[in-house]
């Protein structure tokens, strides 16, 4: 059959195009516009080319924030993904336990992010916080507002508490989707519990785990509200992650140009990492070469 073209069909995608334009493309272009100008006030601006990019890329505070951010996201992924999978494996497959565990897991996900920061400030306080007092009671000095390491422990713990349930829920959905015949075949083949996990459950969960890794990477890389409430980026700059630094730059110092340049670089970093993760995870264990994915 011969293909038939009617250019009026483009009108059908126009509504979506407009929505994307308003929600994403126009704001992004505004940022691009800011990033190449020096803005003194309304109506007073000078074109400066790539000046801000040069400045931002050479900013050692930004380098430090980026390194902290990478360590933070790396830690978060290393803890949350295996922990989430372990929780999913331990969850009951049927019966009343299913709803109970699903509700318990969903709770942290329902709490507003800045409230979570507040909860953990109080929870970890060395004088009245449940966990803070407990840790100090064990003879380990713990004071997250003043000790950088303690602040890190608190932020990572909070992040793990907040988002591991999401990984667990995704992994659980993946596990439940595996047909029974696989487990029956594994029993007939005499597979151990580990072999069943390694050769059936893990490969079958790959799809949802790719999504989990991407979501957790992006969200943890962009984290703002919780550490802002919890530590405000301190003590010193020890928990100043990229977005906290960005807001300081844009709102605190009102350096709109550098902040815009920073935003674009930030965006590109997230995009690049997500792409690399996606490509790598899609191919793990399939033996596919680039370009022949099915």
């Amino acid at each position, binding site marked *: 059959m011969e293909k038939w073209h009617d250019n009026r069909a483009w009108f059908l995608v126009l509504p979506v195009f407009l929505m994307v334009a308003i929600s994403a493309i126009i704001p992004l272009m505004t940022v691009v516009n800011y990033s190449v100008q020096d803005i003194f006030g309304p109506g007073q601006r000078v074109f400066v080319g790539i000046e801000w990019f040069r400045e931002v890329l050479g900013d050692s505070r930004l380098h430090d924030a980026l390194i902290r951010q990478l360590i933070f996201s790396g830690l978060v992924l290393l803890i949350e993904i295996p922990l989430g999978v372990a929780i999913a494996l331990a969850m009951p497959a049927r019966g009343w336990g299913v709803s109970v565990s699903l509700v318990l897991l969903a709770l942290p996900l329902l709490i507003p992010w800045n409230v979570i920061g507040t909860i953990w400030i109080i929870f970890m306080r060395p004088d009245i916080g449940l966990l803070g007092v407990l840790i100090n009671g064990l003879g380990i000095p713990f004071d997250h507002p003043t000790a950088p390491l303690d602040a890190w422990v608190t932020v990572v713990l909070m992040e793990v508490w907040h988002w591991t349930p999401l990984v667990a829920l995704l992994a659980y959905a993946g596990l439940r989707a595996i047909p029974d015949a696989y487990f029956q075949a594994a*029993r007939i083949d005499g597979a151990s519990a580990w072999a069943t996990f390694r*050769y059936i459950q893990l490969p*079958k969960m790959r799809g949802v785990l790719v999504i989990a890794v991407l979501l957790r990477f992006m969200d943890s890389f962009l984290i703002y509200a919780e550490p802002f409430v919890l530590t405000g980026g301190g003590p010193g700059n020890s928990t100043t992650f990229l977005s906290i630094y960005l807001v300081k730059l844009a709102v605190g110092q009102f350096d709109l140009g550098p902040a815009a340049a920073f935003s674009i670089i930030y965006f590109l970093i997230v995009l690049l990492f997500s792409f690399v993760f996606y490509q790598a995870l899609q191919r793990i264990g*399939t*033996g596919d070469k680039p370009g022949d994915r099915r």
Partner: protein
Amino acid sequence: MARIHLKNIAHSYEDKPRAEADFALREMDHVWQDGGAYALLGPSGCGKTTLLNVISGLIQPSRGQVFFDDQDVTNLSTQQRNIAQVFQFPVIYDTMTVFDNLAFPLRNRGFDSESVRQRVHEIAETLELTADLNRRALGLSADAKQKISLGRGLVRSDVAAILFDEPLTVIDPHLKWQLRRKLKEIHERFKLTLIYVTHDQNEALTLADQVVVMHEGQLLQAGTPQDLFETPQHTFVGYFIGSPGMNFMPCALEGDAAIVEGQRIPLGQATLAKASGIGGALEIGIRPQFLRLSAQREESGVPVTIAAVEDLGNYKIVTTRLGERSLKVKLPEDEAVPSEHGYLRFPREWTRLYADSQLVG
């Protein structure tokens, strides 16, 4: 390899079964002989898969015992029973190569790598998978995947039996035939006890020496394809086996004949001898192949009207009406069919009598 004895087995998926209907398997006692090729035939939901899973140990029966030869295996795990089972949908380990898939059951049982290699190559040769051994199993076609599932059962040389649960469902028709022949070949070569679940009677009749028919959790009849065709023990077997199925009509007995719609249909001596004093709902049954249709009245012919004639190439199916009952007659292609009215003759040796669905004689 073993003789499998299901001793008074019954199974219910409910914790506290009350009524008979709560049982997926009604109480049964059946022996599967060592080296036999059995087809387990029945409509969907009749308990075939449950029965298979009871044998392989994936399900613990609610009642009764399972014996392999003289050993009671009721409480043994699937792994300890050493059974091979192939499922409806091919199960392969996606991340492994074909070789590793086939080697998996042996490696799990701690075989050394040399005997694994030898055994896998032998089975791959039999199943014509040698060329694919180093490929990933994931990208293969459905029939190759199903061969791998089968291969994983066959690599263990000491399996007690190999169970198939409708293994050809997802296979293309032209490959079905090839795989079926392969299965038969393997059975003859390895002399394994083979139980093959299907709802396709052609598959059952071509593959098995013995066909076991199930319906609503009960074993209705086990026998050779010929037994099932000529002497169905139950009306369900009669119309489930054969195409079209057996004709059944409610009847009463009078003297040496069955009375159907006011017409006398004489019965054989052997049947009459067993029928004396029998009660319950009586029916007579006859295969469409055995009915004789003619235009003129012959000795003991019953007048019928011709309702429809279907020409199916090398034979014809004629639907006739006797009062309110309809009877199908299977005729050779070249035989003339009377136009409106005809006479049906019921050969005595093929006319069966049933009481409450069970064969009388």
